[in-house]
């Protein structure tokens, strides 16, 4: 029983953390442009790294 006193708050806390992370990512606009995010990985970097010789 004493184990529960620790485990339940931890489980709830982690769940809440996940919920907060989801709400924050939504507010931050992470899901506004899903197709764009998929395409952006194909864009080359502005300036390729200088390579010697």
């Amino acid at each position, binding site marked *: 029983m004493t184990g*529960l006193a620790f485990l339940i708050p931890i489980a709830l806390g982690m769940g809440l953390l996940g919920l907060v992370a989801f709400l924050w990512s939504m507010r931050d606009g992470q899901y506004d442009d*899903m197709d764009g995010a998929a395409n952006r990985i194909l*864009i080359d970097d502005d300036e390729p790294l200088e390579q010697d010789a």
Partner: protein
Amino acid sequence: MNAPLALSAKDASALATTRFTVPGMKCAGCIGKIERELPKVSGITAARANFSAKRVAINHDPALGEDALTAALQALGFEAQPVTENPLGADTKERKRLNRALGVAGFGMMNVMLLSVSIWSGADGATRELFHWLSALIALPVIAYAGRPFFASAWMALSHRRTNMDVPISIGVILASLLSLYETTTGGGHAYFESAVMLLFFLLAGRALDAEMRTRTRAGIGALLGRMGKSASVIAPDGSTRRVPAASLEPGMLVLVAAGEAFAADGEVAEGASAIDNAMLTGESAPEPVGPGAVVHAGAINLSAPIRVSLTRVAEDTAIAEIARLMDEAGQSRSTYVRIADRASRLYAPVVHSLALLAFAGWMIAGAGWHQSLTIAIAVLIITCPCAMGLAVPAAQVVASGALLRRGLLVKDGSALERLAECDVVLLDKTGTLTLGAPRADIAALDAEARAVALGLAQASRHPLSRGLAAACLRAGVEPAAITDIAEVSGKGLTGTWQGLCVALEKPEGEGQALATTLRIGDAAQTITFADPLRTDAGAMLAALRHEGLTASILSGDRAAPVDAIAAELGIAAQAEASPQAKLAAMEALKAEGRRPLMVGDGLNDGPALAAAHASIAPGTASDASQQAADAVFIGEALMPVALAVRVARKTMRIVRENFGFSIAYNLLAVPLAVLGLVTPLIAAIAMSVSSLVVVANSLRLARSAN
């Protein structure tokens, strides 16, 4: 790095942000080009593209106007229109609210389920009581928050003395929560918190999918809109001009309309001669010459030369606004359409509620206590709560609309798919729908020299025939000849000098051929003919429609001769020279016969018919108003998406019916168990999730339906 440039708050305050819609953004390269090249223009600090919404937000120096920014985008090869409205429209807000509710319900479901599993695996006594209290503590606020969309909609329906799918859902969830709370306070054995929260989670998933589908396609359509004349250059008595928004124009004002500009109000030409493109109003593809005294309408485009127009009717009084009103009225009938989920719930809700009531009465008569009878009645409500039914429709529709989207067809919402599936007769507009709406020149007879001269002349003009000629030459790889002294005389043609010879593109003699031009080089003259060709797959599309059992005919505002020619070529019936009112009347007549017409059209003159039809589709090149009125918009030169839309819509409805069938079969199995009092919270939870998963899996079969 392709992340946006971070702007410090101090910098940002001094900058203005303007949003543009850029329909031409098609690939990663376009995003990269816009975001990399625009900040190189002086005055622009950063640009951020939203690929899904086809929009670009530009942070810039306030001194830089919209025109300069549009020009900068144009220089990169993207056509762009500034967007004024709030980027977070009502649809986006609704979607975000649903996503938040879904997140909260998901959190509640996982945690309550964690506690419930312990109870099912044997926790009892004080532990069970503690877990029930914890479940209540989590579940009640979650239900209060995540259930709001359902409670609000159910309340709306009930207060209008109607019922919809949300009424049985709300009753089930609320009763289950109350019973569970009672069980918890009295230390009872069974609490249904996890069932209530899980039900909300699955149903919210359905709603969120539905909202996602609407915002995604509406963003696509929004990106195509906005080509109408929204302001005009008013000439003051002292000769100076200023830009006035269309809504503030007044009759009697004198406006200057540049070549290529759209008219913002109806008026009479006061000075100058030009040709106007009236395709939006009449569907007629040949340009119409106008001179002093001629009447011009808002929405038409001035093609060749600047003219002065004295305004007669503005804003709400223009011919275009009149058509918009017709469309509004014609669209009323569509708002009374009852979607399949609500039709199902009309049959379903009374059955479920009377079953629960009968179970309660039966157990009371059989001598069980009121507590046990009530528990059983609520178990019946929970087990029959239309979880799978709530998912049955949106899951299938969202998969289908995604499949259609990949083929270039944007369906506005689920109700559009349902109505598309029911159509049994198709009416097609000619210009711009069956045909491409842009004249194409036949240059096969010209030699290389003539082609070069023709291109040199044609590319100097905005006239649709010149554009068609220039496009045909460019496709053939012609290099333009260097022509000097090019002059354009409205209604006559283009003249110029090439290697000391007089060259010209002129209106041919004789009125017979409206779509032709004469190329004159020195004394030699050749006639170039134009055709507004059929979309290449028009015949195949009609065959595909026939295969689905739909009869097609043409309903056009164009002259009888070209309409009949195309009708004969395609082998279908046709009605020509139909006014917007006549098109609307034809639609009403079909509906009165009990037919369900599908209208496909692009012009503003098709608008009322598009709004009145049982379902409607417009091409992406259609007028703004027509795209707004249509249920779906297709992009590109192929006409096949129209037939595809009907086929996929029908397949979707078949899957939806299968899903319903499955839900009902599941209920037939589960209800006797519930009525006999054998359903425990564990059985309810398993039954609910299995039925939902089966429905989703069945709907996913539609993913390849458009191939």
